[in-house]
């Protein structure tokens, strides 16, 4: 429950907090795209490591870490899922002692296991980048940036509002739980069916309360002219400075490297039937190192920009 609270933006100062929202969007999109192009465990690890370093240097590490704990929670599910739907791989580690109808005999193979773990690293890389973005970017600034990018502003307002109301939702939840406990709903007792019913006593009031809230917010926005014109003006603008453009170029670099690699067939990775070696060629190693270096290189540049506050 606290995880959600920690995912909310808090005003602080750090190299990532101070960075232009355009830069952060570029950085995020570049990590997302690379993680979709490759299944290579080392490349995915590189992506994860770069958001780890970014989080370390951005004064939000503790919050970021508690979000990343979610990934650990997913690991067994990913493995289980792969075990059921996937029957590839030749190095059998363990075999289920009985047959399951439809699925047949279930094997856990080394290849399956490594594939599952790689998918978890992918998940961690994506989630880590999103978490860092969320933790360090003011939703209002994001709104401005997205509008400037000619994306529809209404949808951004909705998503930025939803992050803003997460803490309110949780305080509602706590109040409702207290109220129902005072009416004798003991959440710590009873079997699964009973407990589900008990949580209904929390869920339905929460739902109706949130619906009330959303209608009221919609009213408030409407009465303040939201959606009056196709365009909006902006009180605080997101302007791109020359240094921002340079930084954006640095943030795009890993993606360009990835594209080059993909087109020249470097960095593909096969798990089945027999798993590839981690590093197949020296050119692969070279490109991966360059990718990591350019991701990490962004951080001192951001720091430098912070030091030279004028530009």
């Amino acid at each position, binding site marked *: 429950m606290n995880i959600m609270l920690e995912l909310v933006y808090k005003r602080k100062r750090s190299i990532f907090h101070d960075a232009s929202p355009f830069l952060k969007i570029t950085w995020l999109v570049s990590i997302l795209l690379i993680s979709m192009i490759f299944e290579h465990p080392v490349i995915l690890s590189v992506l994860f490591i770069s958001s780890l370093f970014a989080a370390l240097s951005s004064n939000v590490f503790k919050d970021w870490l508690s979000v990343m704990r979610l990934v650990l929670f997913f690991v067994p599910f990913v493995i289980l899922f792969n075990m059921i739907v996937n029957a590839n791989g030749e190095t059998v580690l363990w075999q289920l002692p009985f047959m399951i109808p439809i699925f047949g005999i279930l094997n856990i193979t080394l290849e399956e296991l490594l594939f599952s773990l790689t998918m978890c690293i992918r998940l961690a890389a994506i989630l880590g980048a999103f978490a860092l973005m969320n933790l360090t970017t003011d939703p209002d600034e994001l709104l401005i940036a997205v509008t400037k990018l000619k994306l529809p502003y209404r949808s951004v307002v909705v998503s930025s509002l939803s992050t803003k109301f997460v803490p309110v939702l949780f305080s509602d939840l706590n109040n409702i739980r207290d109220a129902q406990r005072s009416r004798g709903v003991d959440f710590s007792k009873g079997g699964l069916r009973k407990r589900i019913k008990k949580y209904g006593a929390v869920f339905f009031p929460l739902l109706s309360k949130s619906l009330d809230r959303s209608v009221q917010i919609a009213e408030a926005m409407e009465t*303040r002219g939201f959606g009056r*014109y196709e365009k909006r*003006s*902006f009180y605080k603008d997101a302007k791109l400075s020359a240094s921002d453009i340079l930084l954006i170029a640095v943030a795009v670099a890993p993606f360009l490297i990835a594209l080059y690699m993909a087109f020249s067939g470097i960095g593909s990775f096969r798990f089945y039937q027999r798993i590839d070696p981690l590093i197949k060629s020296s050119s692969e190693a070279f490109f991966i190192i360059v990718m990591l270096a350019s991701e990490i290189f962004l951080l001192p540049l951001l720091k430098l920009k912070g030091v030279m506050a004028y530009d």
Partner: protein
Amino acid sequence: MIPNFYGGRISGTVLVNGKNASETPTNEMSETVGMVFQDPENQLISNEVEREIAFGMENLCFSKELMRKRIEEALDAVNITRLRNRTTSELSGGQKQKVAIASALATHPDILLLDEPTSELDPRSAESVLNVIEKINDELGLTILLVEHRLERVIHHVDRMLMIDHGRLIYDGSPRKIKSAHFEDWKVGLPPVTRLSLHFQNRLSNGLPLTVKEARTALSDVLINPKNKISWERVKSSGKVCLSMDKVYFSYDHEKDVLKNISFDVYEGDMIALMGKNASGKTTLVKLMNGLVKPRKGKVLLFGKKIGDYELSDLIKKVGIVFQDPNLHLFNDTVEEEVAFVLRNLEMKDELIDKKVEKILKQFKIHQYRKSYPHDLSGGERQRVALASVLVSEPEMLILDEPTRGMDYFLKKELISYLKEKAKTVIMVTHDIETAAEFAERVVLVSEGNIISDGNKRDVLSKALLFSPQINRLVQPYAKYGIPDDTLTVGELLKVIG
């Protein structure tokens, strides 16, 4: 303002500055009409105060220079310039409401509508928000329309009062010209001094007084000649302790104590009003009393037994708590089910449940709604359902967290008489000084996590600057003529002056 939002049928026309309000989209009306809503939580959209104020102007495509100028103006008009760079979620309720007003002002509407803008605020913040509204009206000449049922807070600020009852306009005029005959039917609370003055209408020359000061002049010849000599009896607490707290500390985050060194006993039969500003620790204090939160240090004993040692089912037979927002309680399909819910949790027999539910529904006058969906009822009815759904288990001790918020004068009166009749031991958390004076025998004041005053209501509420009821402030200068200086309510004062 929002005919297009909810549907429904309208006949007749609503013209606002010549625009037909029912045919104009709401977001277009926003150029003429600004609006501030009841709940400060649900109307702030941005994270930062300046941006919040800019939001409406951005929608209307104002230029940046104009926005900068208007933000300056709006911050200044509402007197919150020092909050300009703050994050909105950190602000107090009163501050949020002022930001909402500033945001509405910034687009320069001709009319400002306010829907119970102070109902979520404590008296101090409410007063300062209302002063801001009056100043705007005064200095900017803006037309202001304020919806409110707690007249005592606003009546002295207004020039014209419109009263609506059952969908009909029943009064339109200066609040000073109310005739007593109507007012009983209005179901709104006039300020106590005004209610008092209605009994002496033949002696008033300048219309009804609306403030304590006006009442002192208007009624001075009545007040210097009290007919009866009365001294008010002070009801003592019984000797039987229900709940005792010994040197209790509490903190939510293990850093800052919300409650500090609280030692406090509740005796059987006590009628306690627990008062204090918003965020003073009142609600936390009552949560300790039914074990919802546990103290960091110190002991809480309930009928001689540690509160942590109770089974939940035993605990709720001892302490019932009704929270301020009835929506937090209600989730069943019918009122009947809602009220029976706690009894089912106690695993009572069905026949017994039916009997008890039947009885309490009649007592609370909600029997006719027993098959209705709770959320379809009005606010006051819902509040009664919530109350009934706790009281039905007949707890030894009843805790009410601001039960009178959103209740009109008559519902309050009903609630108080019900509590005096039926409940054994009651602790009521409230901002409402007049309700406290009517209801309680003992008043406890909490400030910043400490109990700063605890005693008979006549000692605590008399001559206290912030927490005195109007009548008490009215009679102070007349104590030398024989009116007891611990008189608190209209009823009491009428007994003295005849």
